[in-house]
């Protein structure tokens, strides 16, 4: 029933898998209504001119032409988003894995405490205004007053508005925010590895923790590592809330921290050009598909 391979006809295979479909129904009916239908609608809208008042007008590839040929600002958003994906993704991925590994090797009592410490950012993550106090542009900002007291700087730095600093600050904050999810899933993965595998490893001549990590732990949690990578890339490509809350996103100076998400929000909620906003969304969607495909290829090897 379960491993019905290709020797049976398709109709027969569908029929014999009814239990599998039954188990998928509750979740996927929700996915159909709240994800598949809205996303398909957005794809259709990307070929129209839609201002949310009048009925959408079909314009063919016009939105895409405008996006790639005329729109210079889109290239900035694309560049910033890719920058996030390439810098932020790998750093927080590797850091989350190393921390999960170190914490997992610790004695039990300490471990619970350390996971709390490490997961704290994710819990307090939505509270962006704390960052604005820390990186306030005047002397009352914690970062400025600290540096001024140490005589490292004389004048307060406009951390969040100066195009020289704001990208760095946002990346730091985003790394800090994005660690939690990867970290927790790595912890869950590490804890599922059968201890007897480690015992067998000792017999096979594994001498230290690093060999154990390389020859037993990593091969055994490959699927969780892939999960972490997909989440990190997805997170990095959909950065938008942080830049919006801290540096203004599409209003930041010279669009220095504007991401694709900020750009979409701008067109969707400020200019009411839903067709164009949808086209940008579709491009982002394609970018995700490409990233996902290359990640899967990377992990299969």
């Amino acid at each position, binding site marked *: 029933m379960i491993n019905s*391979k290709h020797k049976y006809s398709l109709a027969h295979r569908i029929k014999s898998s009814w239990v599998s479909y039954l188990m998928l129904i509750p979740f996927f009916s929700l996915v159909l*209504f709240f994800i598949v239908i809205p996303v398909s609608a957005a794809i259709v809208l990307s070929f129209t001119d839609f201002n949310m008042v009048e009925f959408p007008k079909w314009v063919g590839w016009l939105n895409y032409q405008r996006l790639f040929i005329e729109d210079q600002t889109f290239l900035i958003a694309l560049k910033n988003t890719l920058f996030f994906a390439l810098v932020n993704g790998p750093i927080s991925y590797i850091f989350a894995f190393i921390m999960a590994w170190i914490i997992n090797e610790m004695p039990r009592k300490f471990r619970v405490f350390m996971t709390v410490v490490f997961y704290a950012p994710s819990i307090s993550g939505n509270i962006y205004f704390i960052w604005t106090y820390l990186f306030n542009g005047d002397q009352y900002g914690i970062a400025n007053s600290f540096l001024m007291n140490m005589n490292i700087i004389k004048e307060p730095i406009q951390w969040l508005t100066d195009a020289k600093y704001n990208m760095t600050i946002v990346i730091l904050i985003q790394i800090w925010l994005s660690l939690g999810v990867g970290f927790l899933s790595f912890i869950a993965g590490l804890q599922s590895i059968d201890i007897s595998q480690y015992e067998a490893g000792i017999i096979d001549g594994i001498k230290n923790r690093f060999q154990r990590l390389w020859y037993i732990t990593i091969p055994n949690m490959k699927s969780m590592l892939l999960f972490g990578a997909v989440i990190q890339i997805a997170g990095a490509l*959909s950065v*938008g809330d942080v830049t919006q809350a801290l540096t203004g996103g599409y209003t930041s100076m010279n669009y220095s921290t504007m991401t694709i998400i900020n750009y979409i929000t701008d067109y969707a909620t400020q200019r009411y050009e839903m067709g164009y906003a949808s086209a940008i969304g579709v491009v982002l969607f394609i970018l995700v598909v490409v990233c996902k495909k290359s990640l899967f290829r990377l992990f299969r090897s």
Partner: protein
Amino acid sequence: MVLPFVYAVASSFKPPTEFFLFPPPFFPINPVFDNYKDLSVVLSNMWVPFERYVFNSTVIAAITSVVYLFIAAMSAFPLAKHDFPGKKVFLSVITLALMFTPAITGIPQYVVMTQLGLIDNMWGVILPALSSTLGVYLCINYLEIIPDTILESARIDGANEIRVWWSIIMPNIKPSLFTMLIFEFQAIWMSSGGNVLYSEQYKTLPAALGQVATAGIARAGVGSAASVIMMIPPLVIFIISQTIVIDTMTHSGIKG
């Protein structure tokens, strides 16, 4: 790592004057409870009793997290361990939907919800949250670690697939279930339901506290107090879940 978190807690005990000192103190010099008192005064003067917001948020978060664990784990099992026509399509939907951006699908989704009669109704917050694919994806990946041999032995004993799922899979994927619980609870707890809930009596705690904690240094203390209150439930859920995960899984792992 915890610095901003600690700073939020510390700030919630600062009297207003300490926000205007130079250099600004990281910890309060004279810790006071004034911010929490002010917050309770503001909240008790609201049009709808404060308990109502707490009630709304708790009901929404509880239903969402519990239902999600079941339907997500139930759909992850066939996707990870069965072979059936169309499996690849379902799997791609899961991974692609991780990138679901509300900015884009917001308008069509709103139309769908209006058609289903979900506007200004707590189900309008719950049902879309249940369609999150993050937990299902986590669960599928976790299931790959579980060896097929333990499933086969149950099948030989005559268990049907629902039974295999419930009595073999569910107990063995506890770490991922609790991890899912943490993600889902936190997401739903922090969601304000702003674009769905209009009537004041249906609104959630984050929506109510958000009105109090609007930025501005004069209200920094009260704002911090509000955030600290918001952080407590996810923190409690997190600590309980992690303790259980670590207790049940340490040195047992999954026997193949």
